[in-house]
């Protein structure tokens, strides 16, 4: 039996916003019955261009239904720009977490959201240069690469948990591993000697600043946010979030998951990151 949080159970037993909106502004269907889960998402905007209503239909397990229900709740009241920033991790966090093997349910939600927004904007979601890597579940190299980057996946098993790729005949495992290797090869810089000598405080702060500049700020900027280093007290790194990150309900998760991960990797494994009011 899966260990589901109360929140997952609640959204599964009493799903919010089940159904389909007529004449929606955005619509998407993702997944397939062969893959074991599928999601149809529709939303409608109000006169202020905020999402007035969102509905889903899901074929899938309890966490797929709960993820879809959570997503529609999260969407309401948001502008399309705000909605676009919702990640699969946000959906999982909203539900108090999902079992690792079920993360693909939240990925399905994010995928549906992206496609629904694309349909609203009238752009095609076809990415012609992407190639199917996992034939069993129809997952492309681009989808795998995005999941690896966004969720910092390092093993084929994790990729399977998030995207399903590799969960069938296993023929694609080698290719998935190649994608993982490629992602980290481009992320790794010449920096970061294997043996880290003990840092002086000045050195530490300088390295933290450098790492933020090089590894962290560009990704946050890409999402319309920013970060400022406020202070370093021992191994506590105090930072303030700016821009979109400051209001984003996922910023806490971003902090822990991403900023800390980067600082630990490039500066010192002892560091902990704390957010302070800006």
């Amino acid at each position: 039996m899966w260990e589901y949080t109360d929140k997952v159970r609640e959204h599964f037993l009493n799903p919010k916003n089940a159904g389909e909106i007529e004449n929606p502004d955005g619509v998407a269907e993702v997944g397939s019955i062969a893959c074991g889960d599928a999601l149809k998402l529709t939303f409608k905007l109000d006169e202020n261009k905020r999402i007035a209503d969102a509905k889903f239909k899901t074929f899938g397990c309890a966490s797929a239904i709960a993820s879809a229900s959570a997503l529609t709740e999260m969407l309401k009241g948001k502008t399309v720009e705000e909605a676009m920033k919702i990640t699969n991790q946000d959906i999982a966090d909203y539900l108090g977490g999902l079992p690792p093997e079920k993360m693909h349910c939240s990925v399905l939600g994010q995928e549906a959201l992206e496609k629904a927004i694309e349909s609203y904007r009238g752009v095609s979601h076809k990415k012609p240069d992407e190639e199917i890597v996992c034939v069993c579940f129809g997952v492309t190299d681009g989808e795998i690469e995005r999941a690896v980057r966004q969720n910092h996946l390092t093993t084929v098993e994790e990729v399977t948990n998030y995207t399903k790729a590799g969960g069938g005949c296993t023929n694609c495992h080698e290719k998935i591993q190649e994608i993982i290797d490629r992602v980290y090869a481009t992320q790794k810089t010449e920096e970061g000697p294997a043996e880290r000598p003990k840092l002086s405080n000045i050195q530490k702060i300088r390295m933290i600043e450098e790492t933020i500049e090089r590894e962290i700020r560009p990704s946050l900027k890409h999402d319309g946010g920013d970060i400022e280093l406020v202070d370093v007290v021992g191994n506590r790194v105090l930072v303030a979030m700016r821009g979109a990150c400051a209001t984003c309900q996922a910023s806490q998760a971003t902090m822990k998951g991403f900023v800390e991960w980067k600082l630990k990797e490039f500066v010192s494994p002892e560091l902990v990151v704390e957010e302070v009011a800006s």
Partner: protein
Amino acid sequence: MKEVYLDNNATTMVAREVLDEMLPYFHDYYGNPSSMHSFGGQVARKLAEARQKIASLLGADPEEIIFTSCGTESDNAAIMSALANSPGKNHIITSRVEHPAVKVLCEHLAQKGYRVTMLSVDAEGMLDMNEYEASLTPDTAVVSIMWANNETGVIFPVEDAARLARERGIPFHTDAVQAAGKIPINMKGNSIDMLSISGHKLHAPKGIGVLYVRKGTRFSPFLIGGHQEKGRRGGTENVPAIIALGKACELAGANMEKENTHVRALRDRLESELLKAVPQSKVNGNRRQRLPNTTNISFEFIEGESILLLMDQFGICASSGSACTSGSLQPSHVLRAMGVPYTMAHGSIRFSLSVYNTAEDIDLVINELPPIIEKLRVLSPYWATTQGACATA
């Protein structure tokens, strides 16, 4: 809330009589049956009694019974022994619908260089005996085909299959873990060489298994160690569990009639009422050649885990062959081998009954399940668009 337990192919309740029989052998009579003193000796006598009862249920001689730690060990021991005793032979025959205890072992052996034939099944989960016969070759070291399938309950003609193997001098093993105690087994009347059973499927505890090895069949031990089981399986006997299994086999023999009348009638009513109440539902597996306690029903366009969790609200316990419940991402290998379409396979539910189920248990499911199916179908993107028509995905 009292649970309605309809998952007896997964495991069963230890029967009260069985528990009573085994309990004294933990604290009061804890002697080692191999000891020279009479404190241990009395345990050895009790063990012999249990061995006799188990042999009786199977129509076997007590010397043909080897105790193991579980059904999985029995399956492994049988196949590995047959291979060890057929040096130079490189071919294994099994079916695509075996329990992982056999299937995964055979896949492992295939990687080690054995040639493994996995016999296909038809849409009803039945073997093609012509295909089977054609697959027997002079190079075949062992055949292992289950007596009854744990997911669908489909019964295989293992006695016929064993005869064909015997004619060619090929050792034949069957996994009878689901068959034992549910349908009559008489080893005196067939030519099966080895047979596995597991205690926890017939109201004995988990962690006790039996491997039947026919007199005259060459056997190499799987666990090498002490002289126990006449040197065929090392390790001090799990005395309380063996005594429990003896009692459980005695009960199973006494309940065999009830299993095939009362339990069968409950199962049949459950099945026919659900099929009647729920459109686009279908039984998986041949309905005649089947264990009396099992039904596997697919509810189209919805997913099994959701069904199970909603039934759980009513205390109803069952299983599913859907991907989400199998711990993998693919629906059950048994349903896929049968060619059950994905729209059906993901929504499959297995109910497996026991003599302890009542008419009220069945009524509860008949009343509560159809609205659950309805609720999930309303959520399903495939239902509205495909009602009556065929799936597009």
